[in-house]
Structure formats: structure tokens, C-alpha cells
């Protein structure tokens, strides 16, 4: 299965990818800016994400919140999201509304600043602070992402700090920051525009050129500090978080090869053998057979610079001592580290991955997002058609090679959440011990 991919550059550096599919009168537009929380300067954690909110507050010819209204009025869906390495904006609309979407995206890429006001910034800052309260502070295990980043990346590394940001840094963000960030990163030569679905190729090229062509190229972006990292953590890392949670939960992270590399695909398969669905090792051993876990899974961060992370995620059943949870997860990881995986396990993982991949490409939005991703990270949107072959090329030896070199004790970072009450019981125990 191959999807059609066409690519061209505008003179201002905007990379455009097109993928036609006329089965339904739907078109998806997806814009990736190559900027994320990694690009934030000191004292401005959370800014890339706050900025994403500001992009929905209007631009030179679009009123506040009008972007949302116009797309919904057109019968479309839309949103944006921010990650460590990129920020994306996406819409899926009836195909006769493509011009509107391109115009809206071009207006905010070309001419955002006239619409920015202190009042809008203040409101969105409040919205984002409430997003932090909702998703992070008032949610069990909600601090997982920022705690994990802090644990596994060295202090100076761009991936080390919080993506949603601290309340203080959010408070400090100013309109000057907005103007500077916009001029530096929201430029056509730092973006990829992908269009997938029902459109006319020639007419779409014309519209893209008309709307985005006049936007000037950027002045270049400041280089990131060195992203490179040793292949393994070197030490065992461990942090215990006492939090408002009901059940202990262990996230165990392993440094792994960057997204898109051969090693990444082997890692991804190893992760699937360990934690994808109910037939995976962790689910089978810890949830089904030994019944010490309520749930178990594994995922990768898909980071394209420095190093990626494979994370195993296991929640304890009630009454299971946390030491046992940790021991048994370690035992499964040790087993794979020492003895590798079987051909049958590899085949199971590949079969599941293949179905997921094909099924996800049914959606125009998903196609456009993957085109943007491969174009942004590697300049090659047609890698979308190679993913399956890259996975199929993974051998048992590749997975075992990864397991042998990167699942060892020198490459494990454990982030362990424990119910807050257990602090009290530990203190009581300590007090009792001290009294004797």
C-alpha cells in the first residue's frame, strides 16, 4: 500500500507536501512549525505552548476566536498541539473549503502580530494555567511527563524542562516574547504544509503560492545547544513521587535510538513485545498470570534529536507491595535484556503494528500529520510509505541487539508514584523504629 506524495518548495522556503485521495469530499491541512518546548529560553518554560494558544486569537485579517468559528462554520474540525520538538496546527474540512483554510493559516503565519494584545495574552495565560491545573496538578500521575523529562535529561539539555511550563514562567511571558518568538520561529522556511485528501493538484499549488508566497523568509533560527546524549544513562536513575494517587505506578524509561533510525524501529518492536496489547510480555506475566498489575503498557516518545525514550508503564493492583511491583517489572526487563525475543513474538508485534498503521491512514488528517512529521524531521515526506518496510526489515537479532545494549541496569530510569498516605505510614514506621 502506497499513498501518493508530491513535494515542492516555495521561494521563501516553505516545504509543501500533497497527497490526493478522492474517495470522500474531505481535505486535511496540517502545518508543522519546527519549534517546540526545546527552543524555549531560560525562564520561559511553557512558552511554545502558550504561543500555540495565541495563534487562535486572531491575525491581521482574522478576529479573535474567528479562526475557530470560521472552520467550524465551514463544517470542519481543528486544533493545535505542542511537543518538545514541534508545534502543529491542523484542520479537516469539506473539500470546497480548502481555500479558506489555506488563507487562515497564511494570515497567521504572515501577519499575526497586529492582532496580539495584552488582554488576549492575559486571558490565554489564565486558560493555560487552568490547563496545567486540569491536566497536570489535579490529575493522578499528571506530572509524569515533566518529572520524567527532569529525571532522564541532563540539566542543560533542551528536553529537560517542562512543556506545559511553571506557573511563574507563564506569568512572566510578555507581548515582547510573543513578537520575538514569532519572528524567529513562525517563518515559512521553518514550517511544513501538508494537504491530504480531495483537492485539485494544480489549483492547490496555485492557491498555496498565492497565499503563502508573499510571506518573507525568516532570518534563521538560533541553533539549539548540543542535543547529543550518551547511548545509555550510565547510572541507574530513580525517583519516588508521593502524590494524590490511589495505586502505585511505575514508569521505567530507557534511553533509545532517535526516531526514524534503524535502531528506532528495533526499539519500537521491542516496546511492542514488552507492552503492546494483552498478548505482550508485561500484560501476560504481570496482569494475567501473576495478577500483581492492574494494567501494563509501553510507548516511545518519538524524539528525532539527541536520543529517544522507551517507557514501560505498569500500575499495581491494590495491596501489592511496591517493592514487589518494581522487582517483577525488573525481572521481565532482565529477561529480555539477557535472552532477547522469539521469532513468534516479533511476528505478533509486526502484525499488530501493520494493522494499526494501515487503519490509521484511512483518515486524511492522520496522513497529513505523518507527511508533515517526516518532512519536518527528515525533509522526506515520502518516508510515510517506507514505515511498513522499515518495520518489516527488523529482525530478531536487531531487537536482541537493542535489548542487550540498552535494557541493562546502566540504562534504567524509574519514576515511581506512590499514594501520599504511604509517606505517613513510612514516617510512623520510622518513628516506631526510632522509639525502640
Amino acid at each position: 500500500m502506497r499513498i501518493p506524495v508530491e513535494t515542492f518548495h516555495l521561494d521563501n522556503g516553505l516545504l509543501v507536501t500533497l497527497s490526493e485521495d478522492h474517495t470522500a469530499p474531505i481535505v486535511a491541512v496540517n502545518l508543522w512549525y519546527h519549534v517546540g518546548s526545546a527552543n524555549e529560553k531560560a525562564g520561559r518554560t511553557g512558552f511554545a505552548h502558550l504561543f500555540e494558544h495565541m495563534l487562535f486569537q486572531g491575525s491581521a485579517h482574522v478576529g479573535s476566536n474567528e479562526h475557530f468559528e470560521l472552520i467550524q462554520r465551514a463544517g470542519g474540525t481543528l486544533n493545535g498541539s505542542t511537543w518538545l520538538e514541534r508545534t502543529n496546527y491542523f484542520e479537516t474540512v469539506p473539500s470546497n473549503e480548502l481555500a479558506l483554510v489555506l488563507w487562515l493559516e497564511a494570515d497567521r503565519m504572515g501577519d499575526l502580530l497586529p492582532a496580539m494584545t495584552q488582554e488576549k495574552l492575559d486571558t490565554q495565560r489564565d486558560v493555560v494555567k487552568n490547563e496545567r491545573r486540569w491536566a497536570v496538578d489535579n490529575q493522578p500521575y499528571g506530572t509524569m511527563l515533566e518529572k520524567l523529562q527532569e529525571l532522564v535529561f541532563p540539566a542543560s539539555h533542551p528536553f529537560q524542562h517542562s512543556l506545559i511550563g511553571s506557573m511563574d514562567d507563564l506569568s512572566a511571558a510578555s507581548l515582547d516574547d510573543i513578537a520575538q518568538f514569532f519572528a524567529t520561529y513562525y517563518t515559512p522556511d521553518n514550517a511544513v504544509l501538508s494537504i491530504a485528501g480531495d483537492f485539485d493538484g494544480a489549483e492547490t499549488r496555485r492557491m498555496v503560492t498565492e497565499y503563502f508566497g508573499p510571506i518573507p523568509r525568516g532570518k534563521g533560527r538560533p541553533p539549539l545547544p548540543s542535543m547529543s546524549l550518551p547511548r545509555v544513562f550510565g547510572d541507574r536513575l530513580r525517583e519516588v513521587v508521593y502524590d494524590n494517587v490511589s495505586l502505585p505506578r511505575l514508569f521505567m524509561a530507557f534511553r533509545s535510538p532517535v526516531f526514524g533510525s534503524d535502531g528506532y524501529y528495533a526499539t519500537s518492536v521491542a516496546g511492542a513485545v514488552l507492552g503492546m496489547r494483552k498478548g505482550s510480555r508485561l500484560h501476560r506475566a504481570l496482569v494475567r498470570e501473576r495478577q500483581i498489575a492492574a494494567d501494563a503498557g509501553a510507548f516511545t516518545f518519538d524524539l528525532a534529536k539527541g536520543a529517544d525514550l522507551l517507557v514501560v508503564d505498569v500500575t499495581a493492583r491494590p495491596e501489592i507491595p511496591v517493592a514487589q511491583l518494581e522487582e517483577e517489572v525488573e525481572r521481565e526487563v532482565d529477561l529480555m535484556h539477557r535472552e532477547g525475543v522469539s521469532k513468534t513474538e516479533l511476528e505478533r508485534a509486526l502484525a499488530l503494528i501493520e494493522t494499526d498503521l494501515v487503519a490509521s491512514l484511512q483518515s486524511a488528517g492522520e496522513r497529513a500529520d505523518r507527511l508533515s512529521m517526516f518532512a519536518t524531521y527528515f525533509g522526506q515526506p515520502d518516508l510515510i510509505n517506507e514505515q511498513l518496510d522499515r518495520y518489516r526489515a527488523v529482525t530478531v537479532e536487531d531487537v536482541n541487539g537493542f535489548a542487550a545494549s540498552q535494557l541493562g541496569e546502566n540504562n534504567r530510569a524509574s519514576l515511581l508514584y506512590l499514594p501520599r498516605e504511604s509517606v505517613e505510614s513510612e514516617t510512623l514506621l520510622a518513628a516506631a523504629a526510632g522509639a525502640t
Partner: protein
Amino acid sequence: MVATLRPKSGPPRSYRFPEFHEDVLPNGIRLVTAPVSKLPVVTVLVIVDAGSTNDPPGKEGVAALTAGILLEGTAKLDGAELTEKFEQLGTSVESGADWDSAFAKMTILSSRVEEATMLLGYVLSDPAFPEREVERLKGERLAEILQLETEPRGLADEKFSEFLYAPDSRYSKPDEGTTASVTALSRGDVDAFYRARYRSGLTTVVVAGDMSRDNARALISKAFANWPSGAAQDRQLVAAPKTVKRTLHIVDKADAPQSELRVGHVGLPRKNPDFFPTLVMNAVLGGLFGSRINLNLREVHGYTYGASSYYDWRRGPGPFVVSTAVQSEVTAPALREILNEIDRIRSARITDEELSLARDYLDGVFPIRYETTGAIASALATLIIYGLSPDYYSTYRENVRTVSVNAVLDAAQKHLHPDKLQTVVVGDAKSIRESVAELGLGDVQIHSS
């Protein structure tokens, strides 16, 4: 520099919901097929009229447990072996039950659909319900209930249902059961529930994707040849409200940074003559990003990351609810804004702009909802579960487009009941109690979480 004139829409291209066919197989199973050949994938969705409203009193959760354990073993193969077989074929079967239906669903490459469907039919027709797996799944459900104690969103939803419906209503308890009811369930309960309701007269198989109607008919007839025939009576549903007087419940979470808010009342059943006006009315009130409640609470006041309202459509009258989480300090003003918006949409017609936003959105987004075989299969299941007309999807857009401002006002006056509002706040009782008590939301009851 950038083109200043907003472009106009082009001529719309026509769209039809995928063509589908209904057959009744020789043993009485209904088969709905929607051949869609965009990509080589197929979704097979089995629905059985064995949802949670059929749980006997005291055995709340048995429908969900039964559906959840269907794939956990037959006389010959245990759960681990079955899981392995499906996953080697590149699929996993998701099974469960909601209020109105039990389901088992898988999406798979078309090259492997026959083998997987034969296996699915065999497993569903002859589940062994091993004692050990029954106890394990009960344990997992109990762990989930425990997790809710520290999860404010889920806790607010659950408490809202508990305070909304009369204690003898099945809707007052979680669909997957309570600690007490789940603890008491046995293998025998599961087996009895299965034998009573997993029958051909209550079963529909939906096949959507890269497979013809003829091939689907042959395959499903073969795979489900041993499905027991017969039907069963539905249990009578009680959906009375617990009270018709406004009441304010505070579920205490000391020092919570946010208050989770739920405000609403018993709504109306899915199949009702006012469905479309009510749908459009709710879109304007709280169903869209650009709805009154979201714009007010989020974009004007910055109280929240998001606020919405919805009717939880069920066969019986599910809840109508406004749902949001706000910074603790603004709990009272946020509740006041919600009350104002409910009153406002009942007291005056919405504007033409508001009407067109809601109508154009619901009309235009229609094709985008059915991009995948999974979404198409679920849409077809909805027709069966709620007994909607076969032309429901082909007339949906017309039905949305013909809703008027007057019909919206009627729907708001008929189906929103400010005098009966039940309010749940999961938050820091100490700091909010005084200010929220002044809002006229009824007697205040404080609960520990």
C-alpha cells in the same frame, strides 16, 4: 502582503453515507454490511442487546463483566492462547458493554479477516468463563473503582449520576458496577446472564470495509452457525430523578487546585421527536468550541481550559450535563455564568448567526465523521441499538438544516429545566462552601470523597 480578502467557498461536492445492506441470517442473526474499499481493512462489530440496563438488581456490573470476559477462554483454548491467536493475525478484539449494548469489535487487514472472524465466532459462541479469569477481571474493576477516588473528573461524573437518579434506577450506579455489587458477582452470574441474552434474536453483526455483502454473509453465517437462537425480554428501566428540587452537592477534596463542576438534570431518551432541535440547541449552548458556555467561561473569563454541555443519549433518559473544571477561587462566579447561560437560551431566541454556526457545523462535519471502517461500523450499530430509521444517515443533514430559531427556543424551554438542576462540585469544600451556597442552587450537602 498576504491576501486580505477571505476566499469564498467553492461548490460543494456531494457526499453519501456509505451504502449498506441488512440481511437476516438463517439462524436469526441480523447482518449489516457496508462495503468500503478505500484501504484493505475491515471492521467486524458484534452487538448484542445485553447492556448494563439489563443487570439484575444487586448484580450491577454483570453485563460489563460478561462482555469483558467473552474472549478469556473456551473449553479448548485459554485466554492467553486466544489473545495470542488474534494478535498473531494483527488484531485484538475489544469487548465490553455500555448501557444499551454489549459489543465485540476488531479491525483487521482484509487478507486476514476470514481466519480472525471464524475464530471470533467460535469464541463468542462457546465461552468457558474460567473462574480464575472472572476473579481477575473483578479485581481489575475493583482497582479501577479505587483509582476513581483520586481522579476528580471520573469521580465528578460518577457522583453526578448517583445524585441525579433515584436509588432504584440502574442509571444511579456505574455501568460497570460498584465495589459491593462487583465483589458479589460469581462465575454463575456471568454464565446465567450470557445464556439469557446472547441469542440470535438480540444479536447483530456489522461488517464495514473491504469485503462484499455476499462474502460477509457467507463468512458470518459460517462463523456464527452455532449461535443460540431465541430472544429475551428487556428489564424494565427506572430512570426517575432522585429529587425535583435543586440540590448542591460538594464532594470534598481538601486543597484541590480546581473544582470539577457538573450541573444538569435528567435528560431525554435518544429516540424522541425533538432530537434534532435539541441537538442544535445544545450545540449553541455548550456543544461547540464557539458555544456560549465555552466562550463565556474560557475565552471571556479565562476560568477554565474548556467547558461544554451535552445530552448523554441512551435508550432511556440519560443525563443532560454542563461539565467543566475551574480554578478553585472562581467556583462561584463560574457556576453563576453557567446558570445564566441556561436561563438565557430559554428566555430569548438565539441569533441567526448562532443558528447558522451550529447548523453549518453539524451539516458540514458529517462526512468527516465516517472516514474509517471503525467509525462506519459504530454508526451502523447506533441505528440498530436505538431502532433508528434506515434512512437516518441519508436524511441527517437535511434534518439538521431545517431546524429554526423557534424550534431551538422550544427545545430549550421544553428540555432544559433550571428549577430541577442538580449541581456537583468536586473541590475544596472549606474555601468554596460559603460563596457557592449563595447562588440559590438548593440545599447544600457536603460529602467526603
